[in-house]
């Protein structure tokens, strides 16, 4: 395996691992504060129990997210030192702000998780909100930096070096808005569907449990709202990519020949050698309509892009189909759930719907992974779009297969351990049912 491939796989694997924990870290605090807020308003202790149960799961996932995020910030230099040497001064701004957002998040998460008995009710709830807000912001800042790689801005290129740099223009690059919007919604969407699915499975095991019904009610509300707006944000993204990154659009749509009134290819297996897509379904004019909101518009195909600048078409196209397919499926299930709720004014318990929801549980995260594959693989062969190729950014350190294998083994073990622990701590009914919850106060009460 070449060092370039090893480095790219290590980065992809680290990012793919971290993004799940980061998404959960962004979305769970919102679910917790909603539940805690309902407890404050109604006095119903079930909501409090629910917030505390979720807090347990979040504590585990947040810790893994925090350390795997640290790995990523170092990996930028360990694997791509020439990229960071070139771009650090330009994209450091969102990373600096992310540092503070993460600081705030970690501080108030500590207060939230361990402060149930130490701060007032409202102070505790506010701490939860601060976690939710700063977690969302830190995700947004990181994605802004990534958006810059897709849509570099804020400098003049002089002899291959950035001159007259403007870090604010780099941070607020044209891709920042649609990418942060799409990713933030995705985090809430994927997490809330997963939570709703887990509690649905538990509700089937414990029929009539108010605890799980309330959990599904909160998670599904967030899920339905985000599922319905996500396709709109996807449309904004697709049109932006069509205008600004035609190679990526052509790859993700497997669009070989430039054409007016271009057809949309759904599914299929693209073959870059023969420039054809087998088994795809063609919908006339749909691609022009989607990409430019005009059925007759011209859509740039891969024929306009030098072959040396093509991203791996098959991977990008298939990942894109997965992401969009799941997006529409979740929207459909979400609308179905909303209709069921509207008819009965109760958390839907139709068995077919429950099964659909449980099947959708992991799919949101599959879509998140697929979406990142589209963004990152779709940008290849560039690390900074049309400015620096990925191979130019690579470290000179040899034998990169060694760290690749090390981190892969480490992350596989952590995934297994995390899943096992969540199963034992959150899914199986805890023995000491939400009494002191966390272990912190116990010692002082015993000895004070």
């Amino acid at each position, binding site marked *: 395996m070449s060092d370039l491939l090893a480095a790219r796989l290590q980065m992809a694997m680290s990012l793919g691992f971290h993004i799940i924990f980061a998404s959960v870290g962004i979305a769970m605090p919102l679910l917790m504060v909603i539940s805690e807020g309902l407890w404050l308003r109604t006095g119903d202790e079930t909501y409090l129990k629910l917030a505390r149960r979720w807090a347990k799961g979040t504590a585990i996932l947040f810790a*893994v997210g925090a350390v795997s995020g*640290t790995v990523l*910030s170092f990996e930028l230099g360990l694997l791509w030192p020439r990229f960071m040497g070139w771009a650090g001064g330009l994209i450091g701004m969102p990373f600096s702000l992310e540092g503070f957002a993460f600081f705030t998040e970690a*501080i108030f*998460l500590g207060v939230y998780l361990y402060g149930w008995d130490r701060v007032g009710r409202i102070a505790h709830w506010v701490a939860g909100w601060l976690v939710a807000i700063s977690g969302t912001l830190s995700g947004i800042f990181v994605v802004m930096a990534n958006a810059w790689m897709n849509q570099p801005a804020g400098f003049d290129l002089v002899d291959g070096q950035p001159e007259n*740099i403007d870090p604010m223009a780099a941070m607020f690059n044209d891709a920042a808005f649609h990418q942060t919007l799409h990713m933030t919604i995705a985090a809430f969407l994927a997490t809330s569907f997963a939570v709703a699915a887990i509690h649905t499975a538990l509700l089937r095991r414990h029929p009539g449990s108010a605890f799980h019904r309330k959990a599904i009610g909160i998670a599904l509300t967030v899920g339905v709202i985000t599922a319905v707006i996500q396709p709109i944000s996807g449309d904004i993204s697709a049109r932006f990519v069509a205008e600004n990154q035609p190679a990526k659009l052509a790859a993700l749509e497997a669009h070989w020949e430039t054409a007016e009134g271009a057809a949309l290819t759904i599914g299929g297996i693209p073959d870059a050698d023969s420039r054809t897509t087998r088994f795809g379904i063609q919908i006339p004019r749909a691609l022009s309509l989607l990409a430019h909101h005009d059925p007759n518009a011209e859509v740039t195909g891969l024929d306009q892009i030098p072959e040396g600048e093509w991203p791996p078409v098959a991977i990008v196209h298939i990942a894109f189909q997965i992401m969009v397919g799941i997006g529409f499926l979740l929207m459909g299930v979400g609308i179905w759930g909303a209709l069921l709720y509207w008819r009965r004014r109760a958390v839907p318990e139709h068995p077919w719907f429950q099964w659909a929801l449980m099947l959708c549980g992991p799919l949101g995260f599959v879509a998140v992974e697929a979406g990142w594959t589209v963004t990152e693989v779709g940008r290849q062969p560039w690390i900074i779009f049309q400015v620096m190729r990925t191979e130019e950014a690579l470290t000179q350190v040899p034998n990169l297969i060694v760290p690749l294998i090390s981190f892969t083994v480490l992350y596989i073990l952590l995934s297994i351990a995390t899943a096992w622990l969540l199963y034992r701590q959150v899914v199986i009914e805890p023995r000491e049912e939400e009494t002191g919850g966390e*272990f912190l106060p116990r010692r002082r009460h015993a000895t004070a």
Partner: protein
Amino acid sequence: MPPLDLTAAAVMLAALVGYAVLGGADFGAGVWDLLARGPRAARQREVIEQAIAPIWEANHVWLILVVVVLFTAFPPAFGAIMTALHIPVTIMLVGIVLRGASFVFRAYDSREDHVQQRWGRVFAISSTITPIMLGTIIAGISSGDIELEDGYVMSGWFNSWLGVFPLAVGGFTLVLFAYVAAIFLTVETFDEPDLQEDFRRRGLLAAIALGAFALLVALLAGDHAPQIREELFRSWWSWPLQIATGVAAIGALAGLYLRHFFLARTLAVAQVALILVGWGASMSPYLVVDDVRYDDAAAPDITLKLMLGALAVGSLILFPSLYYLYRIFKGRQAFALIDLPGIDDAGPGGADEPPTRT
């Protein structure tokens, strides 16, 4: 107004001090978990866990801050360090991941089973390896053994960090963190005198080991880190700084011995800060000795201005939040500089803080 690049370097050093004192104590506590002995071994582990649980993630962010300032303000230095020291940085990261993950796995797994004990082991061992690697990285950039040509590393992947001097600095870092942790833990255990004595004894032993390592590092520095040695002993600021560090070290030791635990903690923190400030000052003007100067590696002024502005505004949020965090979990004694009568009554969850929720 000092130059922007110097200010950025100073901020980085300050963040490193934050990490060494706060994050370092969390790692040091892991060392004492590994070395827990005697009739109260289980209690020692429990206290360690309770002391760091609510705060370790916040303490960890100081390291992120160091890295972010490094790659924003001094991009070529970041590239050079991460290339030349790829291996120790990777080992350190594996340690950081394992420490954090195993800590939370242990804390949330059921108490008495063997799975939990295994995580405890992982936590303790990774807490030990990580500071050693951090020390070798610091030695690597200080020694002058890293050689760069046009941004390419010419000095190999092992020489600059795998040797007697870097490992001595690694050992020094480990003992320093363990020493600070033991002193912090004497304050944490004010209500359990037996346990407090355990950590006092550990602190005293660590102080002696620290002195030995300091001597070893100082002797080796003559050959292995001439720049540091030269600056540290010849500059105008060196003697006042050396004396201040020595006073803090002896004071902390005396405080610990005489059971003035708060005073010992204050002086130990001052000692760590002075050691790092002395190191940082003697690194100047280099970020990587002989090869990367901070003024050459600095990003354009506009980047530095914006970053420092963001840090200044951010710290207006950060410091009150940190104060709040420690105030909640460590009580009034979190900020006590010296031992005052009655201070012990105001410990964490003590009489002045009745639970607000039943």
